[in-house]
């Protein structure tokens, strides 16, 4: 059997490898090189090849000296922190409740999951209307019965918009994450809780000393997914605010840099893209290492 796989190995991995090289490796390498050039997308300034257009660190210097990039970076980071906390807390609480109830587990899982399959761009338009009309005029506006300023005109202030983005993204992903948490909860043996109860441990104590440590593998997965997707968030940014009122996040900025400059500054956008990659990769690796080290063996 071993020799069979040895003989067939390259044949079996070749299709993926070729595609991977074409779609990921080569463009990724090119992207790094192009970030040091004056690239216009369709051509290089000063010649036919990228090495004719080398400008050294110029693109990096200009993105770090203009405040649009740093602003978007800060805003994205704030959003990511808020979204990761809200998404995890909501999905974990829902999972804990669904685990405890006796009837309707399946129905709740299905209903909460539904938004995940709907597009963020498409549903973002619907939410835009909900925030602008239903929230601001009917429910929480200045003339409404429950006037709540935080929920009024949410899309017109960068701080309130952060909450709006977090609400919609949580609405979308909580159903997915709760299934992962629920699965983790179901893998914890009832015997441990039984033993803890005999020892007189309170429910609160059981939650912190048993549930949370044993749920660490699920945390690793969900945190990885929520952190990465929050940093890369773009569709809602487009559909809810189009980046207006100081709400542009990094992903959308990379797109806008090219669209709003003439001639299009692809080289500069690519420098933003490289920094973006470094940030996402560093945070993701650090997070996986940190949560992995807290996983306990039973």
């Amino acid at each position, binding site marked *: *059997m071993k020799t069979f*796989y*040895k003989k067939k*190995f390259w*044949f*079996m*991995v070749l*299709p*993926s490898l070729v*595609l*991977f090289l*074409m*779609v990921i490796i*080569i463009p990724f390498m*090119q*992207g790094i090189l192009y970030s040091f050039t004056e690239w216009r*997308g*369709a051509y290089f300034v000063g010649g036919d090849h990228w090495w004719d257009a080398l400008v050294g660190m110029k693109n990096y210097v200009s993105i770090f000296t203009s405040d649009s990039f740093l602003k978007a970076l800060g805003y994205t980071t704030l959003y990511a922190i808020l979204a990761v906390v809200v998404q995890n807390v909501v999905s974990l609480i*829902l999972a804990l409740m*669904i685990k*405890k109830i006796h009837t309707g587990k*399946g129905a*709740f899982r*299905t*209903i*909460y*999951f*539904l938004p995940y*399959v*709907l*597009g*963020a*761009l*498409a*549903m973002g*338009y*619907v939410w835009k*209307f909900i925030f602008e009309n*239903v929230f601001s005029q*009917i429910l929480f506006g200045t003339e409404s019965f429950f006037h709540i300023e935080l929920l009024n005109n949410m899309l017109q202030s960068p701080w309130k918009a952060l909450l709006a983005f977090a609400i919609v993204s949580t*609405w979308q992903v909580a159903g997915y994450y709760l*299934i992962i948490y629920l*699965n*983790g909860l179901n893998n914890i043996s009832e015997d441990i809780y039984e033993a803890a109860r005999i020892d007189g441990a309170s429910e609160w104590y059981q939650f912190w000393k048993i549930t949370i440590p044993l749920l660490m593998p*699920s945390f690793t*997965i969900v945190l990885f997914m929520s952190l*990465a997707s929050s*940093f*890369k968030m773009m*569709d809602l940014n*487009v559909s809810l605010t189009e980046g207006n009122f100081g709400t542009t996040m990094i*992903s959308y900025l*990379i797109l806008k840099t090219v669209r709003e400059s003439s001639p299009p500054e692809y080289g500069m*956008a*690519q420098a933003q*893209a490289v920094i*973006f*990659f470094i940030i*996402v*990769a560093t945070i993701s690796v650090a997070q996986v290492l940190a949560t992995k080290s807290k996983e306990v063996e039973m």
Partner: protein
Amino acid sequence: MAGKAKLKQGLMMFILIIIGISTVFPIYFLFVNSFKNQQEIVASPINLPRNWDLSYIKNAAAQINLVGSLIQTILITALAVTLIVVISSFTAWAIARRDSKAANIIFLMFTSAMLIPFQSLMYPLVSFMDGLGLKNTFGLILMYGGFGLSMSVLLYRGFIMSIPQSMEEAAMLDGANIFQMYRYILMPLLKPTTVTVIMTNAVWVWNDYLLPFLVVGNNDRKTLTLSLYYAKSLSGQYGNPWELIFPAVLLCVIPIIIIFIFLQKNIIEGIAAGAVKG
């Protein structure tokens, strides 16, 4: 004591139902407002429509070129997902069964690629594919294929490592070739993972607007989500034409809601099964 437990159950049920209603509210909202005119939408957004007027849906269907966009989207999604399922499972099989340096390096390469945000390489990717003459629908399918690989290889590899090799050995002794082993032994065993891979990738490809935006742009080969984006952004210079946006969004999400209703049980079990190994 029993009374207290019952109260707790009731309370949790109540909270879950309230959250459940809020979860489907935007979908209800989308539905009822797809049959109203602009005035009625703004004046009474929550109520059922006064009369179920289909003209707004017809207008939206024309605006987003429904039939053409739908065919295009189904074609791209189906082919990209098939490509991902076939080649990632095949590759994961080799990586899971072969314990060599090359296998480990290739696996590491696939997993670390998950750290690369799409935005980090989209511009060079599109220009590179353009150079190969692939800035078209076929190229779009290949790009989705390549981007979907990492996660799928990871999921398949985890699952294959958990199943014993004995069935493959028996099949080989019976004279099965590699494709027969793959088709009759491996794929049936991998079903739960395949459901997850199909679901996550289909949802992503169907709803994506960025890649079609870069590759296709505003021509007649647009996908549904991209058509919606253009319908919204080209008509939105003078405020938001909700009587167009709501029915257009509805047309974009209806196919996926229908598929979800039919497959929801498999999808949710698939995610739960996939999560253990991932």
